[in-house]
């Protein structure tokens, strides 16, 4: 019974990934073109190829709780090269969204989460508040940010302005209604 229930849950997870990333994901032949094309493949575990396999096998925990998702640079080489017309980057995006729903912790997830929240609240990104909020959750990023700040500040490229759109409610509607 336990196995049967787990299987149903695994199947739901697989379906949700396909709903978000496209039904064609199930045609994957595990050729590894995606991994071979990926600029950060050597840092990933599981690889992007393996990640697609985990989804097809419904292995939710392994598919969501890993750093591979946050090492994807969105370069889209996997996507333009896949011989099956699958978008492996969209599989990563689907898993990022599900990891956010499941509240699985990762600095990468926090960054994306804060980024989306700024859009929902203001419609535009203001870099300084975004980075400041992120560093509260990830102080290890401070040294890099200080170095960048030292380059950007004297060139007038750090501004204190909060950028925002006029029709914020419309943007919020997009974020909420279309994200269902």
């Amino acid at each position, binding site marked *: 019974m336990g196995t049967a229930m787990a299987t149903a849950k695994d199947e739901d997870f697989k379906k949700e990934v396909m709903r978000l990333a496209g039904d064609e994901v199930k045609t994957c032949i595990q050729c590894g073109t995606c991994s071979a094309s990926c600029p950060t493949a050597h*840092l990933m575990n599981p690889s992007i190829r393996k990640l697609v396999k985990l989804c097809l096998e419904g292995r939710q925990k392994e598919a969501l709780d890993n750093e591979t998702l946050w090492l*994807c640079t969105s370069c*889209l080489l996997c996507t333009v090269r896949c011989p099956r017309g699958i*978008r492996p980057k969209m599989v990563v995006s689907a898993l*990022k969204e599900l990891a956010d729903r499941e509240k699985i912790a*990762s*600095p990468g997830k926090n960054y994306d989460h804060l980024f*989306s929240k700024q859009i929902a609240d203001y*419609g535009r990104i203001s870099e300084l508040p975004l980075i400041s909020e992120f560093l509260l959750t990830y102080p290890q990023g401070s040294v890099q940010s200080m170095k960048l700040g030292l380059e950007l500040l004297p060139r007038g490229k750090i*501004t204190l302005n909060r950028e925002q759109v006029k029709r914020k409610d419309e943007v919020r509607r997009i974020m909420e209604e279309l994200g269902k």
Partner: protein
Amino acid sequence: MKLAYYPGCVSLSTGKEMDRSTRAVFSKLGIELEELEDWNCCGATHVSNEMVATGLAARNMSQTELDIVTSCSICYSNLRAAAIKLEDFGIRAKVNAVLEKEYKGARIRHALDVVLEVLAENEDSVLLPLKELKVAPYYGCLLSRPVGVYSPEYPVVLEKLIRILQADAVDFRLKTFCCGGPIFMPKEEAANETAYRILKDAKKAGAEVIITVCPLCQLMLDTKQRSLEQQHGEEIGIPVLYVTQLVGIALGLGSDELGMEMNAVSPMPMMERIYERMAGE
């Protein structure tokens, strides 16, 4: 020619020189830009839900009936991908249900594409030919992926532009290799590694300058160059310009009009060489 202009969020902060040089070059070429009404963030690479990303792009695209131009390859890639997605009338109806203005279709162009089109017809607007200047054409990812107008594997449009400016494009193996920019905050080391490889490759190819078509590539290769030099204990010292900055130089625009004081690696020694070569003729 009149186009709607989508500056994108970065144009107001770390990409100010991209915005300034785009406006200056378009004005010089006689192209009128009308800033998109109440534009919003495209979601960059950080909005995971495809329908949300499509909706954000659609809101921007529904603000005008003109062709839309942007200098940022991330915005460009997102808008183009959304325009294709919105060809599906089911998706279009769903998106239009939450928009205030109806999305009815859009044509999205990258600033590079427009500049090349105009320059190819008016080569005599190149007042300052960039003779002998060795330029590394850096494409990055999103100008031609997932659905640009150029080859996603081996684009040559920047080489064409470089030829019109009478400069020389160097043979640059990593021209479409990712700069790592989208993950530079949470995954600093991984991002730095890819940026460093690109800079080294451009240097090995003999480049005097790298040109970019994306503000995040610019940040990784230019703003971070000094800290990458420190990390590796070696000098790289290659200026990195937006494509519109390099075009602007050749059109005879001044450094201030092109925001050249905002580049981290000073392009001034390169500028001096350009003027010396010009004077030497």
